[in-house]
């Protein structure tokens, strides 16, 4: 018999990574989550420890120190910072709901700023590559049902997307594939990762050699002879062996991680990978998909695209959308020290961006919106604590293959803590009244 205060909520959507598992069973007792069934190790930490390092009151920096402030004061301060700026940047959006991003884009329009999401420093190169080449992709179930060859390239799902392999790929069972025995798993990485240990074929590549290896692979797929004996640390025989596996499969897919997007060549690595996959479709069925890290970075791309036409790095300073990564992308704007204020939502760039970039963020007026205390909230001028999306707030998320899932609200947030949507809406309304709109 379950105690009265205990309840179980099933089919809960996990808000960790782009895998988008939606089969979690959450047990709640006395207003606390006490169990998360079907969750991976990372997810369990999130659901069971979400109360760690929270703060409950908006903060404003006064005399150099962050001090508690009323919600209205904080909204007013944030709105003033943004509307007085000549080139504000609104950054983050990958750990919040699509609904929040919708408001964020409008806010950027209104204050004449740049709206950018974490894509720039995770899978942006894949999008730039797709703008040159296109992309052959699918939903994850297609892989589960049909794939007989699965390649993980510069990705380590065992660590970064712990249930990916079991839910969707090599270990999953689909309509036309029984499971592990009917699938070949190939891993390309600079390290023999835990994922690589599972592989039927592991290709250890030199760091930053991806573009060369992909070029060689495209040659081999075309049946061209390789003049060089060793390419990116891999022998030409091995490359030909790999090419042969790819060409002869019935349905193959490459899942690529930031190991490919971040290594030297960046978008050109993806240009080559997308071209390889496209070429393979002349002889078989082949697809490719990025292993999106944050649970809704894909949603940030979708929302930004349908409102502005561009998936990230959108400059609205001149009233209309303008896009040019390298120019309008967050890291570049910050490292050129161009923006004069920033709003950071559900992201911790001070921890995750190169030092010089992060340092500049700490020098300009900074508004942060985040459930937790982070290095970025510590250096901000206004900080809003918010409800955790997927636990304390509902909203939709787009998993790595673009399938939309609706997250439930499981618990009430700490008292007086609002959702991202509510905070953004309040700032938007205040900016509107400041601008007399």
């Amino acid at each position, binding site marked *: 018999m379950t105690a009265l205060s205990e309840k179980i909520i099933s089919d809960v959507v996990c808000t960790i990574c782009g895998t988008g598992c939606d089969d979690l069973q959450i047990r709640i007792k006395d207003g606390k989550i006490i169990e998360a069934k079907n969750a991976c190790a990372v997810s369990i930490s999130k659901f069971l420890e979400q109360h760690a390092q929270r703060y409950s009151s908006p903060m404003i920096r006064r005399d150099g120190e962050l001090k508690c402030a009323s919600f209205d004061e904080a909204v007013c301060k944030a709105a003033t910072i943004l509307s007085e*700026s*000549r*080139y504000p940047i609104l950054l983050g959006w990958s750990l919040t709901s699509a609904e929040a991003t919708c408001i964020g884009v409008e806010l950027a329009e209104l*204050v*004449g*700023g740049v709206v950018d999401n974490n894509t720039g420093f995770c899978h942006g190169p894949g999008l*730039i590559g797709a*703008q*040159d080449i296109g992309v052959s992709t699918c939903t994850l179930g297609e892989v589960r049902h049909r794939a007989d060859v699965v390649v993980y390239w510069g990705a380590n799902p065992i660590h970064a997307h712990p249930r990916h392999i079991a839910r969707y790929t090599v270990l999953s069972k689909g309509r036309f594939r029984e499971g592990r025995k009917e699938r070949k798993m190939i891993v390309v990485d600079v390290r023999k990762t835990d994922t690589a240990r599972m592989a039927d074929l592991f290709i250890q590549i030199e760091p930053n050699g991806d*573009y*060369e290896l992909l*070029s*060689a692979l*495209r*040659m081999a797929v*075309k049946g*061209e002879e*390789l*003049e*060089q004996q060793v*390419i990116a640390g891999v022998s030409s025989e091995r490359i030909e062996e790999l090419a042969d596996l790819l060409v002869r499969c019935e349905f193959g897919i490459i899942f690529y991680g930031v190991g490919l997007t971040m290594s*030297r*060549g960046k978008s*050109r690595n993806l*240009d*080559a990978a997308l*071209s390889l996959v496209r*070429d393979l479709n002349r002889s078989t069925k082949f697809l490719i998909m990025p292993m999106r890290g944050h649970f809704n970075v894909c949603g940030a791309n979708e929302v930004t695209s349908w409102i502005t036409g561009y998936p990230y790095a959108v400059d*609205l*300073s*001149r*009233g209309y959308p303008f*896009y*040019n*990564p*390298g*120019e309008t992308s967050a890291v570049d704007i910050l490292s050129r*020290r*161009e*923006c*004069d204020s920033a709003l950071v939502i559900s992201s911790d760039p001070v921890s995750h961006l190169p030092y010089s970039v992060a340092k500049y963020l700490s020098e300009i007026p900074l508004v942060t919106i985040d459930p937790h205390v982070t290095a970025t909230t510590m250096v901000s001028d206004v900080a809003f604590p918010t409800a955790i999306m997927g636990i304390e707030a509902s909203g939709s998320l787009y998993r790595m293959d673009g399938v939309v899932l609706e997250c439930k609200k499981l618990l009430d947030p700490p008292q007086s803590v609002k959702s991202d949507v509510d905070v953004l809406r309040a700032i938007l309304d205040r900016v509107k009244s400041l601008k007399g709109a």
Partner: protein
Amino acid sequence: MKEITFRLKRPLKVPVDASCISPDILGDKTNEEILSFELWEGNRKIHLSDIFTVEGDAHTSSDDLEIRLVGDMKKVRRIGRGMMTGSIEVKGDVGMHLGEEMASGRIIVNGNAGSWVGSRMKGGSIEIHGNAGDFVGSAYRGSRNGMKDGSIVIEGNAGAEIGCWMRGGLVRVKGKTGTFPGVHMSNGTVLVEGDCEGRAGAQMTGGKVVVLGSLPSILPSFVFEEIRDKVKVTEEKLSGPFYTFLGDVNENGSGRLSVKVSSNPQLKWCESYVETLED
């Protein structure tokens, strides 16, 4: 030829869009008219007079107009956009998109230039007596219309992906370049006189990439053709010898990559293919 000189009045922080600074637009205008031209500083519309002082007299036809710019204009973008005549001379650094879609005329920069110099350029000439950023003479994301004609000469170094999706004309860098010069180019010439960081000619379908300095390796999708004594770049014959390669085979390309033998001992492996050819 009449001259007009713009002097930057104050340091700039946020990006300034100054596509109005072009002889085509400013020619035949009085200084007063010129100073009231609008441009964007971040999200604010300002007038040229807010950031520049003007000396001289522009009141002449565009063909005869020389615009001089003085100051640190690293943040000033799109100078000379689409210009079809006249000239611009800059003393100091300039920002991105210098001479974007330029069709004719001349731009000289005595300083450094940002990325996308001469993007989508159709003609005319740009000289940078300093360094340039990435994507010199290139297309923008998603489009295939890189530089079509004209010439861009960089006296110093340039960044990555110069001549990206280039369709004609010349990009000449006297110093070093980053990776991917001539990526996806279909015609025209990219000449790198210094060292290149690698991946020259990647995915090219036509045109010519010449590297006089060192190139760490040749992409596997280029096939060795021969050793040539000389390589022709526009009117000039550069003396080699050069290893020449055909590629990018992955794109069924017929582009030529020529790399100077003396700077590249690591490419000696090619010579084994020469012998087979001679056998």
